[in-house]
């Protein structure tokens, strides 16, 4: 459990580090990081989901070296699609940036930071591998939607009908009367 907490905490650390690296001298914007499903309660690593750009103290532990198993260090972003952004004084460059995969106790977690209008607008936690394969399987089993309605009487003018024939009783009655006529 403790190992888990530390790992989760380190993820937050790496996220915070990532963010802190790219925050420009903007007006104290806050970004909300969606936490993974199991949140850490270890306050010593600043697991609060809200970070401000000036609260670099929240990243104190381990932020200098950017360590933690597999966490990004020195801003390296293997697998990312965007540039790292230079200094804390610059704005972000629009785009999506995927961080490296951080090895947590329960699996790998990777984050994607979305920048639009020069601001960090969202950070997504990407969960895998088990969750992804499960959702892929579910999607492949998805059936096409077929429209449904409650049957109700229609009064349209029709020429003929199709349907399960009259009830057994009515059919027998009709047949019996026809046969009676046939006899006479």
């Amino acid at each position, binding site marked *: 459990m403790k190992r888990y907490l530390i790992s989760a905490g380190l993820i937050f650390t790496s996220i915070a580090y990532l963010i802190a690296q790219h925050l420009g001298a903007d007006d104290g914007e806050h970004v909300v990081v969606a936490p993974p499903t199991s949140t850490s309660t270890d306050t010593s690593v600043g697991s609060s989901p809200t970070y401000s750009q000036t609260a670099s103290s929240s990243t104190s532990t381990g932020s200098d070296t950017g360590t933690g198993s597999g966490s990004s260090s020195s801003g390296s972003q293997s697998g990312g699609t965007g540039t790292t952004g230079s200094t804390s004084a610059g704005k972000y460059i629009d785009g999506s940036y995927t961080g490296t995969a951080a090895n947590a106790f329960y699996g790998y977690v990777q984050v994607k930071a979305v920048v639009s209008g020069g601001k960090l607008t969202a950070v997504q936690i990407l969960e895998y591998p088990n969750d992804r394969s499960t959702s892929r399987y579910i999607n492949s089993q998805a*059936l*096409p939607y*077929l*429209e*449904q*309605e*409650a*049957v*109700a*009487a*229609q*009064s*349209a*003018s*029709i*020429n*003929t*009908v*199709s*349907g*399960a*024939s*009259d*009830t*057994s009783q*009515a*059919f027998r009655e*009709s*047949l019996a009367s*026809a046969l009676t006529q046939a006899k006479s």
Partner: protein
Amino acid sequence: MKDSRISMGMPVSIEILDIDAARGIDAAYAYFDEVDRRFSTYRDDSEVAQMNRDPQHAVSADLTEILSLGEKTREESGGFFDMRRPDGYIDPTGIVKGWAIQKAADLLASLGYQNFYIDVGGDVAFSGKNEAGGDWQLGIRSPFVRGEIVKAIAPGSRGVATSGSAARGDHIYNPHDPEHPIRDVVSITVVGPDIVTADRYATAAFAMGQDGIRFIEAIPGCEGYQISAAGIATMTSGFRALSV
């Protein structure tokens, strides 16, 4: 001119709008009488009865065609349509009905008739236009309330067949589970490119229960309207376009 009679053990209606309709109507009913003599499972001297008594006996070209349609439907439906009853008897009734309607429609066309429909026990083949000069309008019977229509469609020159449980008891069963008659679906109506196609697929789909409508959805050129015991209808994606 419209004429309704009991033929092949079922209520049959034939309406012909062209001139000299009476001749066509008589020819069609005479044809159905012959079909009954040859393929009825209730007659000891029918070709079907003879075939079941003596499988080595040569079968006619027509019966060969019927049997091969049945086998094809069995394969396509994963065995949900199967002419072989649990007791081993080969019963091609599920194919004969649509096949005979098509043959009768072909007969009328060969006699020069263009605007007519043939309705055998709720399975209908259409040709041409109705009295108003428009598409024939067909109503789907309510499985719950006698005399009530729950849907009206204009199938053009397509064939329409309905398989359901309101008719004569649970005469359609699931070959994979013959002990349990079909219960959750009370009727499925299939609109196909022709009545043979509509009829054989409707029979197969009904035996599948709720999955029947998906079987129809997967068949190009066929549409379906399936009614559950709870009164909910499920339709294929192209069915709405047929509604009036």
